């Protein structure tokens, strides 16, 4: 019984972290699906989302707003707005001017963008980590008081529910809406979409914006979960989410969701049964293994060279 509770605890922790990885991974996978490139500034967009949420929460607190749902919603909207405009700007500054050039060029300009954003936050907010108020406290406890107690916190539930809502809305958007339809068309054949009169520039911008908005959601959630943010907050999370996207099959949205969850669970199992220090080793070993044995990822399809 004890062992089982311990296992479930790791599973819950893993799914919590994994679902936020999935939220960030969607940004990588959508952009890759459309323009075939990795947005290396995506981790920074997520970090800026977390900072914006923190600033909004602090601001509201200083005005004496104490009603929790209002604080959360305002923080979420602010974070999504700022991150989305960042995502839009990254595409305009780092990708569009060099689109159609050699693949390395946008890669380098995106890395430049990432370094710039990171250092901008260093400058504006300081290098030290800042405490993030734990707005959602408490939770359920399972198990006897002598032995191991499994806990499921309200924060974790919030993360699950929010992620689930975001994923559902995104899936509906992609499968049902006109813009979503156009996104799928552009990702399959950009040139043909262009010829049929679809404004492909607008669709490309839209994918950056959507990915950034989801990263901002993850930023707020993980900020609260971890309890602090710093300017390097986005680096590791970005790397992990990228791993998740590759694991699930880059370019595939369900793949990003699955990859995120698998990676999160693998990490928390490692921390729980082996040692917390090995969790990054495990996640990047997974990346190497998947690249060696199934380079297209779990749900990805082999890429057919376009003529």
């Amino acid at each position: 019984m004890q062992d089982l509770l311990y296992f479930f605890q790791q599973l819950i922790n893993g799914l919590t972290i994994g679902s936020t990885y999935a939220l960030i991974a969607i940004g990588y996978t959508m952009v890759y699906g459309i323009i075939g490139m990795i947005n290396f500034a995506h981790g920074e967009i997520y970090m800026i989302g977390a900072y914006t949420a923190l600033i909004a929460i602090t601001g509201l607190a200083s005005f004496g707003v104490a009603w929790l749902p209002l604080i959360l919603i305002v923080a979420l909207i602010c974070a999504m707005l700022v991150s989305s405009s960042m995502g839009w700007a990254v595409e305009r500054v780092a990708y569009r001017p060099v689109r159609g050039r050699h693949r390395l060029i946008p890669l380098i300009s995106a890395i430049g963008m990432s370094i710039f954003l990171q250092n901008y936050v260093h400058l504006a907010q300081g290098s030290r980590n800042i405490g993030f108020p734990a707005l959602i406290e408490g939770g359920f406890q399972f198990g006897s008081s002598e032995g191991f107690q499994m806990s499921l916190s309200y924060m974790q539930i919030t993360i699950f529910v929010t992620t689930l809502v975001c994923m559902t809305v995104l899936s509906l958007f992609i499968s049902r809406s006109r813009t979503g339809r156009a996104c799928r068309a552009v990702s399959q054949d950009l040139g043909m979409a262009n010829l049929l009169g679809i404004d492909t520039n607008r669709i490309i911008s839209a994918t950056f914006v959507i990915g950034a908005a989801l990263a901002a959601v993850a930023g707020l959630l993980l900020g609260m979960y971890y309890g602090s943010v710093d300017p390097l907050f986005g680096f590791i999370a970005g790397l992990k989410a990228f791993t998740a996207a590759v694991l699930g099959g880059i370019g595939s949205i369900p793949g990003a969701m699955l990859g995120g969850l698998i990676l999160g669970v693998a990490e928390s199992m490692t921390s729980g049964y082996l040692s917390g220090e090995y969790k990054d080793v495990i996640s990047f070993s997974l990346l190497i293994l998947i690249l060696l044995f199934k380079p297209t990822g779990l749900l990805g399809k082999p890429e057919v060279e376009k003529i």
Partner: protein
Amino acid sequence: MLEVQNLSMRFGGLLAVDQVSVDVQEHEIVSIIGPNGAGKTTVFNCISGFYKPTGGKILFRGQEIQGKPDYKISRLGMVRTFQHVRLFGKMTVVENLLVAQHRHLNTNLIAGLLKTPDYREREKKSLERARYWLERVGLIDMANWEAGNLAYGQQRRLEIARCMVTEPQLLMLDEPAAGLNPAETKELDQLIVSLKEDYNVSVLLIEHDMSLVMGISDRINVINQGRPLASGTPDEIRQNDDVIKAYLGEA
């Protein structure tokens, strides 16, 4: 409607197209024929904006379009197909037709989220148009199939339907009969003629299938090694000595 004057296209040392002129009037089917490598597709690519021609003029309804980006040219009311099928293979058949009407729709994101009456109305209209064309090309029963799973001849017809929902004035078909069996070619033949007769679309056609070309073209342009060889009605072309030589070799 379309006037191509002395078009030239040079790739480095290769003059792929040399002083070719083609014109398409309203309500007309015009074909470009020639041996493989004659430069037919290059002409198409210049007209549709894939290439920036190195010489000559292209006028569409009196407006110079040479060197304009492809999406601007397509918005003027001309649409093309390619030698190989370029459907959105992972989308359904009906979605292929809906997405082609994207620019005719109000794509305002807010209107989409709120499903305003205007949004619904336009969506309904585009669905009706898609349904009409699916019936027209005989694919209505496959509306919800993935386009990539259709048979080759069906994919070809779907491509033409996808062109037609954009309500073009000029339809440019690059070897539409390639890979079709004789029965499918005949269906295609009737479809193209009916596009002209019933929907008042002009057609510019590249084709190797001589029976198709001779049967439906109002006029034919022959090019050989990038240069214009002859032009005229199907009968004139059939009797033209230069053309016979180019196709059959010197006797």
